[in-house]
């Protein structure tokens, strides 16, 4: 069972760690590992669905330790970007790797996201 309780960390079967903290009414989701088809994407989907279901639509996803995002992970991010924006929130990205930026650009979704250098800047941008 995944939890959105502050500081909760989940180690996924495929090696994706998901850590969720709440800062100034913003959900900060720190990922560590590849975000790709299978339990990694399924578990992040569950976390974000739970947040959005609880009315938490202001979300920061820290990608600093994510070496790869596949099209399944990209689909998840853009889907929840759309749903959070419809509810007055957004999903903002922190420190995607050079390869992740290239991947997002290749499929034409890079410009959909606001990208920040650190969590503080991303959280403050919601104020």
């Amino acid at each position: 069972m995944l939890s959105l309780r502050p500081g909760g960390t989940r180690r996924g079967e495929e090696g994706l760690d998901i850590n969720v903290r709440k800062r100034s009414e913003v959900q900060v989701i720190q990922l560590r590992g590849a975000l790709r088809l299978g339990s990694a994407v399924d578990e992040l989907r569950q976390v974000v669905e739970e947040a959005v279901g609880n009315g938490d639509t202001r979300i920061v996803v820290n990608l600093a330790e994510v070496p790869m995002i596949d099209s399944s992970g990209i689909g998840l991010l853009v889907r929840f970007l759309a749903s959070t924006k419809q509810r007055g929130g957004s999903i903002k990205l922190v420190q995607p790797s050079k390869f992740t930026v290239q991947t997002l650009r290749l499929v034409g979704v890079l410009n959909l996201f606001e990208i920040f250098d650190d969590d503080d800047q991303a959280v403050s941008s919601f104020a």
Partner: protein
Amino acid sequence: MNMSSEAGDHRTPSNLVELLDLRIPGDAEAISRVTDRVSATLSELEIPEEKRLDIALAVQEALANAVVHGCKNDSSKQVRCRLQRDPRGRVLIIITDPGPGFSLEHRSDPKSPANMYADHGRGVYLICQLMDEVHFEKGGREIRMWKF
């Protein structure tokens, strides 16, 4: 990037060295093992990181298509992944599944406004962006991807 369906892979030389020949069940959880194994093998060969990441992501996407569409997530079915290299250092990945086959005609454009927020439909497009040549053979049941 060259891509074709049923056009034949005329670049395939006869002196390719087989580096990996792996079979996995049609289960999404099995994909990462192959992707990581391919990446580790390329790393041992001192393939530059940028090229290695491109190949690993293309393999991930092709295996995902094979498992989801080719096997319908049926773990009793098998996907085969071969990694080969020619004397010039060019890398060939061949992934085969038992499904009905993929047709390039069914490929969507993920950059069109209608598809921008879709949660699927980017895999083959991404493969074609990451690799130098992509061929579909055997009625679309086999994808052959070259990185030069």
